[in-house]
């Protein structure tokens, strides 16, 4: 079966998609740090960072419905956390809530832009090139490889259950679902053992190695310099307005 939810929009033809993954990782994480560093009651930097994110969103050509769904999928969790501070806030509570939510929305938007405009495999390579631990990268690459397989197995087991299910007994359905999850866990454990054997058979000794094939181009340098200039100017404007 073919699933593509992770790389669904990674092949869109936009200039943001063509930027080196390492550059995108550095730039988007820098924007997130800059957003997080905006002090309370300073809306101007948040508006400027928001404009930057919206510009990237337009440039990425990602469908708005897709980005909206992703945002709405995560923001409720942020809202729950923000509400826990809501009643303790010593200042304007509504303003505080808007401030936390807009920071979260901007950060999540940056992550969506990073992940959706880069192939997951290239993203992992980018992180590895940026000195992210090799073992962590390997765990994520296995997750990417086997996630689809487990979805397939879950679907097959569900089909087998459906084929033998007669009548409507919700309690039995719940029990069967629990058994399916248990089976899936055992199968994933066994598969993990098997994969480790296959790795050993091909020379794996505990040290993860990958090949790097990235080369920075002029557009990557222009992109990173422009964004950092924008962040610096925003910080400067914020600093000047403070005095």
């Amino acid at each position, binding site marked *: 079966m073919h699933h593509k939810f992770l790389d669904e929009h990674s092949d869109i033809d936009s200039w943001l998609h063509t930027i080196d993954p390492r550059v995108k990782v550095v730039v988007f994480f820098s924007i997130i740090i800059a957003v997080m560093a905006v002090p309370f009651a300073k809306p101007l930097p948040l508006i400027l960072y928001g404009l930057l994110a919206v510009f990237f969103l337009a440039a990425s050509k990602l469908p708005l419905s897709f980005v909206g769904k992703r945002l709405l999928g995560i923001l409720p969790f942020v809202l729950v956390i923000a509400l826990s501070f809501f009643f303790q806030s010593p200042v304007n509570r509504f303003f505080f809530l808007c401030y936390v939510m807009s920071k979260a929305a901007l950060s999540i938007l940056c992550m969506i832009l990073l992940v959706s405009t880069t192939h997951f495999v290239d993203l992992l390579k980018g992180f590895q090139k940026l000195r992210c631990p090799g073992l962590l990268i390997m765990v994520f*690459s296995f997750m990417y*490889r086997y996630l689809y397989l487990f979805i397939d197995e879950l679907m097959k087991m569900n089909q087998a259950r459906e084929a033998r299910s007669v009548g409507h007994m919700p309690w039995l359905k719940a029990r069967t679902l629990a058994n399916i999850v248990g089976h899936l866990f055992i199968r994933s454990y066994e*598969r993990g053992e098997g*994969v480790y*054997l*296959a790795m*050993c*058979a*091909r020379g794996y000794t505990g040290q993860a190695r990958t*090949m790097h094939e990235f080369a920075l181009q002029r557009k990557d340098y222009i992109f990173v310099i422009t964004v950092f200039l924008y962040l610096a100017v925003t910080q400067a404007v914020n600093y000047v307005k403070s005095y």
Partner: protein
Amino acid sequence: MSKAIEFEHVAFSYPDGTNALEDINFSVDSGECLGLIGPNGAGKTTLLLHLNGILRGSGSIRVHGSQLCDENITLIRKDVGMVFQDPDMQLFMPTVFEDVSFGPLHMGLPDKEIKERVFKALNDVDMAYVSDKISHHLSFGEKRRVSIATVLSMEPKILVLDEPTSNLDPKHRSQLIDILRSIPVTKIIASHDLDMISRLADRVLFLEEGRAAAIGQTKHILSNSRLFKELGFYL
């Protein structure tokens, strides 16, 4: 002719006490193809896993004259390419290229040579066109061929295959047999596909409950219906 593999009094028991192999003795000449047959649970896969030291039992195993031990396990794994029965176990990296390059990369080869080996191996199994694809998106037959490429890229002197034709349709099965025939290395193939064994193997080792019940020329073993009946392995 020099010996590629020598087993002497090899025995192995799993931690639960199951005797998977008992007093196995055989040898394989360089360039020879040995077929490994026997009923389910006879110990075929267990024996294959001994060939590059993934499982270690008692007795002596020599690969090209070198005793298999901790000191030379890395060298032996370069020589013995193992293709597992389930391609989803063999293909564990996100893309085909990364999977085929995994072995050469861990052999410490330079990037240029790795790329050359990857494309040669993929060409050998007619799968160069999928090098950038995600392994999950391949058909079962494609996965099987790429699995073979993952070990061919290591340029092994011995190729070990566990049930290479299982679950393949007749066309892909036939293609795979032709590919295996064209690979000029020592081969050990465990399978229930007796037709494939008869077409590829020079000799056959018949395993029964962990013991070597018979070994000999392929045509002699496979035509011995009395032996098959005695061992409860009906044709």
